[in-house]
């Protein structure tokens, strides 16, 4: 069930340039059922800005009722968010949407987790859960530049972790797809900018592939039709999927990217 709750901020810190890690406590953690779900955050009590901000859950702890998010301070909303201090309360709506299906890969198999920039966070809980289950995980993380890199150590604890930066200032120079070419795996889970998702969908049509999408949102719960994609089977028709409530994670081909 989706809850709207004032969650207490437990921890809030900058972990890379303009990248913040935010941990809150709340009952709504009980309702999370998959890695890759997200929450919708109200960043102000006033009406500027009006809309909530969708942020993925990067990890959670059901026992402690805590969840962690990682976000990039970018525009007005995330700048306001970055100013909130531990102890303050944050108006959170969630958990929302459907996440990555952990059950789609079995113990003997290898899962490849591919994240681009601010698409990296939701893969962290997924990596933890796959690892806990006994699946072998390999991570490929792409960033713009060295100062934007985060969580390399955390991922490394679960499995092999490759980092690429667009400008080559850290790890391999280039895109995640350059690194993927040389790896072998059974199943891909990915989240990142649309061009990256498209390249992966085109290059790996033969693999089990799950993609997490971003779209500008209104309600976040399926009511406003802001975040609609065309269905994969019916590209010229009227059938559709909503990123917020049917996604954000879809099986390759399910929606038109």
């Amino acid at each position: 069930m989706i809850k709207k709750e004032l969650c207490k901020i437990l921890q809030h810190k900058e972990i890379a340039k303009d990248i913040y890690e935010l941990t809150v406590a709340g009952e709504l953690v009980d309702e999370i059922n998959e890695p890759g779900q997200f929450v919708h955050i109200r960043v102000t009590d006033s009406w500027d800005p009006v809309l909530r901000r969708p942020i993925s859950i990067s990890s959670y702890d059901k026992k402690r009722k805590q969840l962690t998010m990682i976000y990039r301070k970018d525009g007005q909303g995330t700048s306001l968010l970055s100013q909130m201090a531990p102890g303050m309360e944050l108006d959170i709506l969630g958990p929302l949407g459907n996440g990555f299906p952990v059950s789609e890969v079995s113990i003997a198999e290898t899962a490849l987790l591919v994240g681009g920039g601010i698409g990296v966070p939701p893969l962290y809980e997924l990596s933890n859960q796959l690892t806990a289950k006994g699946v072998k995980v390999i991570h490929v993380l792409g960033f713009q530049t060295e100062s934007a890199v985060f969580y390399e150590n955390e991922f490394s604890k679960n499995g092999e972790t490759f980092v690429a930066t667009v400008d080559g200032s850290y790890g391999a120079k280039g895109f995640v797809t350059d690194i993927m070419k040389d790896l072998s795996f059974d199943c891909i889970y990915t989240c990142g900018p649309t061009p990256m998702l498209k390249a992966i969908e085109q290059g790996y049509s033969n693999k089990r592939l799950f993609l997490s999408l971003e779209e500008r949102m209104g309600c976040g719960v399926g009511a406003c039709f802001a975040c609609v994609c065309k269905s994969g089977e019916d590209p010229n028709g009227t059938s559709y999927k909503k990123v917020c409530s049917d996604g954000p994670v879809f099986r390759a081909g399910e929606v038109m990217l």
Partner: protein
Amino acid sequence: MSRLNIDLPGLKLKNPIMPASGCFGFGREYSQFYDLSTLGAIMIKATTTEPRFGNPTPRVAETRAGMLNAIGLQNPGLKKVMSEELSWLSQYDVPIIANVAGSLEEDYVEVAKEISKASNVHALELNISCPNVKTGGIAFGTIPEVARDLTRKVKEVSEVPVYVKLSPNVTNIVEMAKAVEAGGADGLTMINTLVGMRLDLKTGKPILANRTGGLSGPAVKPVAIRMIYEVSQAVELPIIGMGGVQSAEDVIEFFYAGASAVAVGTANFVDPFVCPTIIEELPLLLEKLGFEHISECTGRSWK
């Protein structure tokens, strides 16, 4: 004794608060949050004869104290709305106001004729003011004679009272209101969104794929209040007011301006509980302001 019940043509409302069309789907999503029978009514998403996918994305953009949308009347079409959505909604004790849209007069007439037969549809809301479709919509809502004739044709076939939703994108809103009154409208709903636009700083291009979109939210409230103030003094029709409502205080302001009920749109996205919260707070606010019943507030600004 309720302070909130309101009788309008076709609508016996237990309270005058309802979600605005397009901001509440067909109610399914918000039924996760609360019992829909709490609501005064529900204005469902615009329905057209055939299913529509609507506009490409991005379909929303944010502005100061407001948002732009260009959904483009996405809906599953008349048949499915009747068989799947309205029948699902019939489990709740809440009157439905069906928002009717189209590209041609015939489309409106067809949808109105059929959808008004649904047992839980107690009124129609004629959407002649959608700014986000190429044909129809706002085109009908800016020329008084066209609006009047369409109203008349729809009235001929509808089995329930017809409310006409006015566009704020006109020079003379009173003239539009009088025209649809002359066409036989039973009530008005106002305002739909103001046409607006936002450009991306990096690309220079519009953020919305449709380029322009409809501005809603707190930013437009002063325009809504002004138009309801003007129209309520010029016509005999009851008005369901909307445009930036966020709180019980806002509801009272709309009543003062001349509204007899109020719809809440954008605010649902910010707080899914906004409608039941307002319904709960209204009696206390009325008490504080010294009103026995909310109907005493209607038109107080000019009475």
